[in-house]
């Protein structure tokens, strides 16, 4: 790891001032479970590291009529054990409990989970988010793309969005607050993620001198929620594919639906097709199956990841069935 300057501001104002206007100058350090790996591998080499863990106001969970406000520094371990999370946002709670392992959840923060960098092995080996061969061909298309994108993969970015918690948060309609030199702004979590077109862009709408300060989960509308993961093994790892769904019901029929897939695209993938396939229907094996089909109808698998189309289809179907049954559990493949 390269040498760097270490700073520990105690207010968000100071933190923002310590951050520079370009990514290679400075980096935010929260739990460090991702940043330190990237620095060890020399994928990023900030000259200054701004440790935000001493900013007290960014810790903790508050629950009120506007829903739940979660400080960006709240650890995944605290969230996993939080009774109000389990009670009001069970699918989000399930996603948190399933993520990583105990030791990582103790250190990892929710803000860091949202901002963690893609796991694409070309990116992690220093080839960037749109890796190319010397002749300008896509390294991912030419190479080992078994874990890469099947949707949203028309451009140069073929990695998949890395968080297994973000899709459930999007299903609950999460918003995040971001502090920067000009004050605070708020964005829907769904809009925070973007597909980079060139190497100069990032996978999210965060500027180098901004920090995510809070996550807001609206009061859960009387709806049905579920989170379903397909993993290669039972111990820690990132899932192969997952689906998170929110169903608002009108008696027995679906009034509106949100279907979010993880690990299928460079962003958390909200499937309008799957939602449309459900609206006005009762949830049955057949309608859930049809929504799963719709979710992957636009999929364009790469040379080695056709299996993910089937996994995504089934994950969406099972998440919908579990939501309808009021169960919010995931499962292993």
């Amino acid at each position, binding site marked *: *790891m*390269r*040498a*760097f*300057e*270490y700073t520990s501001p105690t207010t968000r104002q100071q933190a923002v001032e310590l951050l520079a206007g370009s990514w290679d100058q400075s980096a935010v*350090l929260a739990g*460090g*479970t991702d940043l*330190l*790996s990237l*620095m*060890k591998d020399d994928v990023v080499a900030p000259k200054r*590291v701004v*440790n935000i*863990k001493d900013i007290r106001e960014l810790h903790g969970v508050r629950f009120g009529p506007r829903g739940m406000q979660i400080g960006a520094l709240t650890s995944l*371990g605290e969230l996993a*054990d939080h009774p109000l999370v389990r009670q009001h946002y069970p699918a989000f709670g399930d996603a948190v409990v399933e993520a*990583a*392992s*105990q*030791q*990582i959840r*103790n*250190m990892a923060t929710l803000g860091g989970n949202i901002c963690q960098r893609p796991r694409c092995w070309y990116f992690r080996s220093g080839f960037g988010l749109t890796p190319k061969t010397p002749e300008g061909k896509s390294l991912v298309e030419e190479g080992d793309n078994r874990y890469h994108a099947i949707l949203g993969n028309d451009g140069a970015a073929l990695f998949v969005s890395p968080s297994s918690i973000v899709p459930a948060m999007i299903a609950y309609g999460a918003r995040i607050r971001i502090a920067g030199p000009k004050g605070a702004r708020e964005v829907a979590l769904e809009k925070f993620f973007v597909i980079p077109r060139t190497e100069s862009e990032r996978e999210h709408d965060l500027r180098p001198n901004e920090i995510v300060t809070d996550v807001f989960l609206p009061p859960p509308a009387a709806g049905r929620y579920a989170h379903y993961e397909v993993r290669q093994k*039972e*111990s*820690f790892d990132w899932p192969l594919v997952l689906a998170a769904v929110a169903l608002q019901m009108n008696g027995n029929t679906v009034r509106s639906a949100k279907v979010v897939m993880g690990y299928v695209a460079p962003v958390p993938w909200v499937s309008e097709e799957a939602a449309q396939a459900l609206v006005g229907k009762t949830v049955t094996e057949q309608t859930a199956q049809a929504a799963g089909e719709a979710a992957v109808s636009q999929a364009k698998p790469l040379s080695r990841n056709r299996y993910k189309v089937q996994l995504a289809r089934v994950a969406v179907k099972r998440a919908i069935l579990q939501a309808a049954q009021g169960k919010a559990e995931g499962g292993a493949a």
Partner: protein
Amino acid sequence: MKKNVRIVINGAEHRAEVEPRLLLVHFLREVAGLTGTHIGCETSLCGACTVLLDGMAVKSCTVLAVQADGRSITTIEGLAASENLHPIQEAFWEEHGLQCGYCTPGMILCAHDLLQQNASPSEQEIRDGIGGNLCRCTGYQHIVNAVKAASRKMNQRQRAAARAAD
């Protein structure tokens, strides 16, 4: 630019001037001279380097020493309060929860975190709890048995202590 840190390890205060890039595991082994904390992968995958940071299990290869400034660490050397082994250590011994022993300090500290939160975990909860620790030797079954035995021992001792206090 070096930083001064003050880290309490197993109850004893350690002060040092360190480079910010020094990993906690290297601080423990090289600065504090406590080599019971092992380094396996150094990439936060194997769990061999697990220690308790303010009582919570963390992978010390993915924590900077400066992140532990002002906080307290428990390593395997400091788990037992006296000359005697800690009940989790006894249980690993009695149930053959180790062969080469490389993963053992990390396994024991991870089990400690689990048993603090859940005094009587089921087999599945134990397997989930130690999911972040790899063992190349035992096949895990004896480790799971050891954690179960440790849970029984700790619960029994707690009941005995409660009776003695009555």
